């Protein structure tokens, strides 16, 4: 027990991300195709204006963060509710072509999807 770091902000085991276990292969492919993803400053404008975000957990800001950390399953599930309406494109202060980004994410992470995700009645 090291009392000097145990000041109330310790990481609990369950929420710790083991970066060594994350397979970044697909993310590298994505970043090569969509270099703009690296410009995201996680401002959350996209999520705040998202049409589907009104009803579901879809949150593009979070998706981008999650992908950089290799959490792809959740990402793919969230993108199932994107309606491609393009609101996020209009609000992104970094001028990221979010729709194209979403299309690429689905193409890289979703196909070939052995079993289509069905749990979208979130």
């Amino acid at each position, binding site marked *: 027990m090291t009392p000097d770091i145990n000041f109330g902000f310790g990481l609990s085991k369950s929420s710790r991300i083991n970066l060594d276990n994350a397979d970044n292969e697909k993310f590298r492919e994505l970043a090569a195709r969509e270099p703009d993803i690296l410009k995201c400053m996680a401002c959350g404008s996209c999520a705040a204006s998202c049409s589907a975000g009104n009803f579901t957990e879809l949150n593009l800001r979070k998706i981008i963060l999650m992908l950089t950390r290799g959490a792809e399953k959740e990402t793919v599930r969230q993108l*199932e509710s994107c309606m*491609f*309406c393009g609101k996020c494109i209009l609000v992104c202060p970094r001028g990221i072509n979010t729709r194209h980004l979403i299309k690429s994410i689905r193409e890289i992470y979703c196909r070939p999807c052995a079993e289509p995700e069905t749990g979208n*009645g979130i």
Partner: protein
Amino acid sequence: MEDRIPGGYDNFVIPFLAGMAFILAYCIAKLIGIIMHMPSDDRKKLLLSLVNPRIIAKNIADIFSDCLLHVKIFRKNPKLGYMHMSIAFGWFMLIVIGHMEVAEFMPEKLHTFYYPIFFNYFVLKTADSGTALAVYEFLMDFFLLMVLSGVGIAVFKRFRSSIVGMKRTTRPLTRDRIAMYALWAIFPLRLIAEASVAGTGGGGFLAMSIYKAISPLMPESANVLPIWWAYSISLGIFFFMLPYSRYMHIPTEAVLIMFRNAGIRATNAETGFSLLEQYSCSTCGMCIDACPMTNIAEGEKNASVYFIRNLRYGGGKSSTKSIANACLMCNKCVAACPVGINSCELKRRYRSADYDGMPARQYGFVPSMETHPATIGNTAGNPCMEDHGNRISASYAIAGTKGQSRGVDSKPHKTASCKQNEDNVYNKKAIYFSGCMTQLTPSVSRSMERIFKAAGIDYSYMDRDGGLCCGRPLMLAGNDRDAASLIEKNTGIIETSGAEILVLSCPICYKVFKENYRLGNIRIMHHTEYINGLIESGRIKIRRTDEKLAYHDPCELGRGCGIYDEPRKIISAAGHLAEASENRESSICCGGSLGSITLTYDQRSKVTQAALESLACGSPDRIVTACPLCLKTFGTYSALPVEDIAFTVARSLEN
């Protein structure tokens, strides 16, 4: 009149005959292939159209005006129109009159394909033929002169496209060049060949005068055969090059017209009807000048003509895809195309390949119809939807099943309003769907609510707390299957709402609701139509000021749905209308279009600037648009204030 050459044959006709046989066989084989690849419903439509007198009459009229006289090009650009007309109509008349001449004087030779073409070489014209011959000779030379003048303009245009008023013209391929040089050579060679035998074969004012000029220089025994060989070879080369060059449009366009009049549309980008559209593109390049992407550096290479060319010659998957994905789908090129090729639909179909094998979305998160705010308190159902049991299956038909052609019906189908309330639509319950984009521009929806209240309308606001997308953005991206699922959900809500009029603020929504939703007798209105009706019927009164208002025609409202006049009437009621330099069918996309999948923020801004420049032309005080996406896009760049037409009306309300 008699045969000058014994047997009426010479070997020089071989290149012509070979070319002719080749192109005939090629066209028949292709046509069979195209028909085989069409859905069987379309084949049925085609058959029926061939026995329908109304369609037959329309076919003849259209073929005459579009393929021969080129009336559409004339209207847009008289010089270019003359060029096309003189070559097409002149050549056609040469063939027709040539055959009539043979039928009149040497009817026994009519069955030989080549005889009418090389008539003057083979005959010895004697004086006893009288005035009939003189008339034929005059007509033949007259039309030859007409063709020559067209060819002259065409040659000149190659070097200076500005002569016909075009800023840009297409980059020809080598294969096009070969065919083009052959075409340019045909008619001068024909003239010289005919002049060379005018002493025996006769000739009109043109051939005769050249003959008179050159005959003193020619010995009596001069061999004129090489020039006839050259004429025949140029014809042969042209025919052999037809299938591999832009000139394939000559035999194809008439067929395209017949298929189109039969009600057939493209169901995919690569086979069947779309092949006809590809072959019919004459690469005239009118779509290049029309395209707003030419304002972007290197944007010209994304013009529709290059997309079609890539499709046809297989110009590399990645480049075809990048052209298809860049396009703003503003439809300006389609409006400009004299052949009426719906290149945007081809691009949409092309894009759809990206969704093959992708899991289908269901959008199960929508609030259930019973609890949706727009439907609360309505248990009676919708009087306009009674006989609409097939609604769901109809909206499913949009996506089709996997593996089949995924076609959204691209033809607008009429949505009749409830008959019993044709006169007083404004007494009926309305449902207002503002759409996703309007949620980024709340001034629009707030203005609409003020207008509804001022007019005392009973209405519900379908997506006040957010709603589903209309499905059009997915369709523009080529994903009809997912769009169908949204369409079905929205249809359910509207059906349950009990409203008889659906009012939309966004032209993107308006287009998909009009064309792809099956809403029975519910009347679908864009807010410009609705507000204009309110003003005209006196339900609302607005103040007129001295302000100059420039109106921007949104792509999906103007070219997309043909609404040009209602917004102008509203603006004229609120102020002075200042037209943009490019308006109505030629209106420039705001640059924000969801149609483009790949254009970047900076590239779009170039398009926006071009549109704003055109709008600033009449030095207006404000810019008025009727689309939330245009409003948002212009708002970022415009030096002038920009507002939606609903806002213009709301701030001028007197009641």
